[in-house]
């Protein structure tokens, strides 16, 4: 029995090891690659041989990539702040006030967040042209609302439902208006949820590709994913793998750190958006 148990736990830890290696290795390998330059790049290596920052210098020293990072930060932050601003009051109404068609409204919001983005591309393109914001950050800020807003409303609604009724009832008895209840009573309790939701929406906006690709036309207005996706070398055949990996590492490390720091909250937010729904 004990040997069977031993074999069992060895098999279990082997499985755990496979999961961890499979998850982490591609990112690790990108880091290894980002430190090799020249012909060194074209020899397969499992460990870094030396730390050559040449790729990082060429990416960050160029004019366009730092610009793309700034674009992405600006766009993602503005989108998230806008979405959270609208979502707090909306989710209060959805979570706390009983009214007809609430279930239908929730389903519609969910439907919008599941939208195939390509289905609105033509119409958004027209709108972007009409508003004269083509090739400017505002095109992305406007179009990203289509997925950040339903998502934040949805997750905040599930968080708000879980707040104890007694607090609100006490406030109502004291004569507080719904607006006061939101700003004075619920907001202080909701800070953790707001951080989680905002972070998840930020990641979504940071990673978006389709709209950013379609609504920008010059290198200075690109966001990070578009810049990395379209990063090309001197010739069509020669793909600059070193700089691409360096750029990838630069934009991924902050995300990975954020996600690891906020691990528990993110998992809670993700599952609130999905399962408890």
């Amino acid at each position, binding site marked *: 029995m004990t040997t069977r148990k031993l074999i069992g736990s060895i098999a*279990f830890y082997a*499985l*755990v090891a496979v*999961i*961890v290696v499979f*998850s*982490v290795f*591609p*990112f690790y*390998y990108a880091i290894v690659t980002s430190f090799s330059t020249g012909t060194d790049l074209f020899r*397969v290596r*499992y460990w870094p041989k030396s730390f050559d920052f040449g790729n990082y210098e060429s990416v960050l020293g160029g004019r366009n990539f730092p610009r793309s990072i700034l674009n992405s930060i600006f766009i993602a932050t503005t989108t998230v702040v806008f979405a959270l601003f*609208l979502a707090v*009051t*909306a989710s209060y109404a*959805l979570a706390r*006030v009983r009214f007809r068609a*609430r279930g239908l*409204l*929730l*389903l519609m919001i*969910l439907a*919008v967040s599941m939208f*195939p983005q*390509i*289905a*609105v*591309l*033509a*119409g*958004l*393109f*027209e*709108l972007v042209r009409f508003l004269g914001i083509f090739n400017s950050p505002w095109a992305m800020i406007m179009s990203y*609302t289509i997925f950040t*807003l339903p998502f934040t409303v949805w997750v905040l609604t599930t968080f708000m*439902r879980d707040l104890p009724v007694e607090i609100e009832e006490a406030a*109502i008895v004291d004569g507080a208006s*719904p607006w006061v209840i*939101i700003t004075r009573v619920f907001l202080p309790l909701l800070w953790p949820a707001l951080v989680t939701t905002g972070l998840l929406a930020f990641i979504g906006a940071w*990673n978006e*590709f389709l709209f950013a690709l379609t609504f920008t036309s010059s290198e200075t207005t690109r966001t990070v*994913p578009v810049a*990395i*996706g379209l990063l090309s070398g001197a010739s069509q055949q020669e793909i600059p*793998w070193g700089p*691409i*990996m360096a750029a*990838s590492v630069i934009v991924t490390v902050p*995300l*990975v750190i954020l*996600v*690891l720091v906020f*691990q528990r909250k993110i*998992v809670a937010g*993700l599952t609130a958006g*999905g*399962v*408890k*729904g």
Partner: protein
Amino acid sequence: MATSNDGPSLSQQRQRAAFWFLAPMLLALLCVAAWPLLRTIWFSLTDTSLNNLYGGEWIGFDNYLSIRVLESGRVIYRGTLVDAAWWNAVWNTVRFAVTSVFFETLLGLIVALVLNAEFKGRGLVRAAILIPWAIPTIVSAKMWAWMLNDQFGIINDILLGFGLIDQKIAWTASPDTAMTAVLIVDIWKTTPFMALLILAGLQMVPRDIYEAARIDGVNPVKVFFRITLPLIRPALMVAVIFRMLDALRIFDLVYVLTPNSAATKTMSVISRENMIDFDKFAYGAAQSTLLFAIIAVFVSVYIWLGRVDLSGEGQR
């Protein structure tokens, strides 16, 4: 539905406030979702071109299907519905969605079961599986494109080293393996999401049920199929539909990992290509409208068949 215990005036006041709280969000969604969707459908019924958005004329369903009978009696069919490239894209999308979701569910279930067990280093594993999820899709596409590179890629090197292949494979370029490459990257990237959703379902299963089964000496395999699986079925159904919807609209990974490969081109990719790159704006709009319709039908059927409670209202 205004049947709370509060007086009617209070509840009315709350409902009025609720309306004003919802109005800005609804207005924003109308502007960025409903209106563009309607315009896209409208464009699909015209011959609008990219450079002249307002010069399109109504042509009915010709972008979808037009039938013309020539004088010689020959019938000519045109439009998306008889376009081989479109049906190829539909087939690619469906194949991709079904395969990726199947493997993601299976692997996600395994990872979730591992994470649900108590062992040393569980936190570490959970942190590790969050990494693929946190990496932007474009970045993971590039990372894997490099690893799957035919000449210098590490995957070929590993496979050669183990003697699993005898010559290097052009994973992303060859039509035979391009879809596999896309699937590998997508499964790598989204299994964590699936695992976390399933894990949340697993953690809602009361522990004493397992305890009781253990005391009764029920075989662990039987416990899984008879107890765990039925209990997490609702969570599983929701997770599957979320992933399925995501998979059906896939664009970025395919666009970056296997550019211009007919073997992987999905509905989203071909629609955008027609709309923006090939100057067949209205034609692309028709294709994206079809994709929307397909997804809408799929969701309705799934919810109807599976009785999935998406809004979570029923639990309360």
